[in-house]
Every structure is written in structure tokens, then in C-alpha cells.
């Protein structure tokens, strides 16, 4: 549900979404090396497939977002990853909208970048617990979704006062997702730190 459909948001909002996305994409693609492609593609495909994994939470069903996971494993390349995942979701799975790909990438990608910074800062901090990666992975994963929902809520409210009730509904439906993603990203970060550390964005 974090990917908003066509025709809801105000035009200038999704328009500026494209501008921001184009700018960040141009920067991150410049930083990207050709050798990054296999890793990027696997994680992007994972972010896509994750949206097919549904959890039954109360009366509604929610699905994984994995933007925090992308941040933890890909660093700043999480942005193009989420862009491609959203393009795929729109065109192959009809999740989300065409004109809103830009703003949806901002909603999920910017929190992913922030969660990467949190993870990086957390690993440097080294607070002296044995499962550092797991702890900060969980924080990064939770914050990535929380911020995405926050951005979406703000956009809906800016678009119109008549969307207040819908916004409340969307925010509450996502509280379980935030928890699930936090646990998920934490477990994966802890697992990868032991099994395949080179898949994490942080060099030890």
C-alpha cells in the first residue's frame, strides 16, 4: 500500500516526485559500477518478490516493503534498486501507478538512504553488544518503513483535507508492517554478517 496509485495525488506533487527521483538517480547511477549489476539485480528482484509475501494481520493483509533491507545491503545504490523494483511492480504486477513512480521512489528510496546512514553510523558507533548488525539492521528496517508511511501520509494530507480519514486508515494498517520489517531486516543483517559479509553495504 505504500505505493500510491495514479490519479490520487496533486499533479505538482507527483511532478516534483519525478524531478527529485531523476536528480538522485543521476547521482547514484554515476557512482554505480558495472560489477555492481549482479548484486543490484538480485536485491531488486528480491524487493519485487517480497511484495508478493503477504502476512495476515488482523482483518487486512499486508506485504513486505524491504526498502530498509535494500539500504542495509546496497548503500546509496538502494535508490536505483527501488526505482527499478517499482517500475517492475507497476508494469508487471500492476501495483502502484505509472505517473506516481517518481513520488513512490522518493517515498521508499529516501527512507532507504536514511536507513543506510543509520546502519552505517550504528556500525561505527560499536555500542559493545555481540549482535551489532542485527540490532542496527532492525532499527534501519523499521525506520525505513515508518518514514515511508510518514511521507505518504503527508502527501495525502497536502493533496486534500478530504483525504484525512483515508490517511488515518493507511497509517494504522502499516504499524504491523513496520514491526515485521524491523525483525526481518535485523535477522537478515545478522545472518549476512556471519555468512556473507560482502553482501552488506558496510566493509568491516
Amino acid at each position, binding site marked *: 500500500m505504500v505505493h500510491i496509485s495514479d*490519479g490520487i495525488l496533486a*499533479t505538482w506533487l507527483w511532478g516534483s516526485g519525478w524531478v527529485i527521483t531523476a536528480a538522485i538517480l543521476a547521482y547514484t*547511477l554515476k557512482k554505480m559500477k558495472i560489477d555492481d*549489476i549482479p548484486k543490484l539485480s538480485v536485491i*531488486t528482484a528480491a524487493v519485487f518478490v*517480497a511484495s508478493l509475501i503477504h502476512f495476515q494481520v488482523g482483518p487486512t493483509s499486508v506485504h513486505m516493503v524491504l526498502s530498509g533491507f535494500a539500504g542495509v545491503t546496497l548503500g546509496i545504490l538502494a535508490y536505483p534498486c527501488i526505482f527499478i523494483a517499482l517500475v*517492475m511492480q507497476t508494469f508487471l504486477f500492476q501495483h502502484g501507478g505509472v505517473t506516481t513512480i517518481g513520488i513512490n521512489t522518493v517515498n521508499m528510496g529516501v527512507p532507504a538512504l536514511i536507513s543506510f546512514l543509520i546502519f552505517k553510523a550504528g556500525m561505527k558507533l560499536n555500542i559493545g553488544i555481540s549482535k551489532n548488525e542485527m540490532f542496527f539492521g532492525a532499527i534501519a528496517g523499521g525506520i525505513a518503513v515508518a518514514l515511508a508511511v510518514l511521507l505518504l501520509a503527508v502527501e495525502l494530507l497536502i493533496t486534500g483535507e478530504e483525504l484525512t480519514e483515508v490517511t488515518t486508515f493507511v497509517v494504522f494498517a502499516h504499524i504491523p508492517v513496520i514491526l515485521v520489517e524491523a525483525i*526481518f531486516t535485523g535477522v537478515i543483517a545478522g545472518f*549476512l554478517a556471519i555468512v556473507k559479509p560482502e553482501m552488506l553495504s558496510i566493509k568491516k
Partner: protein
Amino acid sequence: MISEIDIYAGLSSPIHRWDPRLKVISILTLIFSIMLLYDLKLVIASMLFAIILVYISRIPFSFIAGRLKWVFLFVLPFLIILPFTVIGEGVEIAHIGSITLNFRGIESVEFAVMIVIKALTSVMLIFPMIGTSRMDVTIKALEDLHLPNKLVQMLAFTYRYIFVLSDEFMLMERSLTSRGFKRRSNLYTIITLSKAIATLFVMSFEQAERVFYAMRSKGYKGKVTTMHEFTLRPQDWFNAVVVCGFAIFIHVAVLYGTLEGI
């Protein structure tokens, strides 16, 4: 689990024969044009135009309906919740405890209906746009349209890995089930699935790297190579003029309508 979008690419129709480059650009123009439209009658007209395009493309409606379901589930809350309010202005219709439910009036119903129709129309147009060419041909068309090469490569690789990963995930789930695992709403389920998915990542990552280096050692330089050559015929331009013409027409109609209103 997920069927490929291009399973009907083998059919034959004017849309299938349309040059993929012009097809992608024209239909994208149309989608953006419809999204900029705020007039219920013209939005409905656009939906009919989209249905005609789908009909010409001969992609079965049942295939599309299955996909439209997801979009509809997303926009459904808007249809149900939007016309009513508990804090704003409106006509009182019910009291539930201390909460007063207000109806915002017929305009808000029209607005909600417009949101739903726009969302469904844009998704419907995706099918004639990329469902009528093989995916590798579409990706080559995107490259010809000078999309950044790194993005094109990511699209091509990711598209392949989606099916690999979802197949492997199903295998993994089956093996979990055969060991007595059930998905429940508890911590154990989440942690078990997370670890299973983490293993899947490590496996896929290693496989992806091997494939990529094998491709490079055989001379892959990042260019999409297919046997398909693009040629532009007058018919391609005619189709583009019809679709883009409609995209422009709906906005001219709005302009003309407002002038007439004054």
C-alpha cells in the same frame, strides 16, 4: 505465482505489429495525459478508449481483470471512505457513539469514482503497451530510446531474476511446509521466513555473480543483443498520431468546455 506480462506477445494484431519504441512513447503520453485530467466525463471517455485499445490488441480481458484486482483493492478505501467524514463539513447521516458521520455530498462521490477510473485506466493501458511485445524486444526498444544504459541492464537482469527468485522461494516454502512449518501471525514465523529468505539471497547472489562473469567472459559488454531489428513504417506513425491525438484531444476538450462554460 506470477505469470510473465508478455505471454500474449505471440498474438497478431495491429498493436503487436506497432513499432515498440513508438508504442511505449505514445501510450506513456496517453497515460500521463489522462492523469492530468480532472473531468469525470472525459475520464470515462478515456477509459473507453483504453478498452478499445485492449480489444484491438486481442489480449484476453480475463487476463487483465485478474491484474486489475490489485489496483482495485488499493483504491477501494478511497471509494468507501472518501465521501464520508467525521471532522469536516457535510450532511449528518449517522451517529455512532460520540462520533457523527457526515456525508460530503455528490461531488465527493464523483471525485472518488474519478480516482478509481483513472487508476484502472492507467493499468489497463499497460497491457497494450508492453504486453504486446516480447520483454527482450521492449528492453531493446528502451535502449534505442537512449534510456541510461545502466538502468536498461538492471531492468533486463532484474526481470530474469524475478522468476528465478520467486520459483526458488516457492521451492523453499514447499520444503518448509513438508517439515511441518505453517505461516502464522507470530514471531517464530517471521524469523523462520527471514532466515529462509536470507539463505535464498546468498544462493541467488552467488549464482548471479557466476552468470554475470560467464556472460562477460563470452563478450557481453552491456548491449542488448536480439535478432529483432526495428523499422518504422507509415502504419507505426499513424498509430502514434491516433493515440497521441487522443491524449491531446481530451485536454483541448477540457479547455473548450471551460470556455463554453463562461
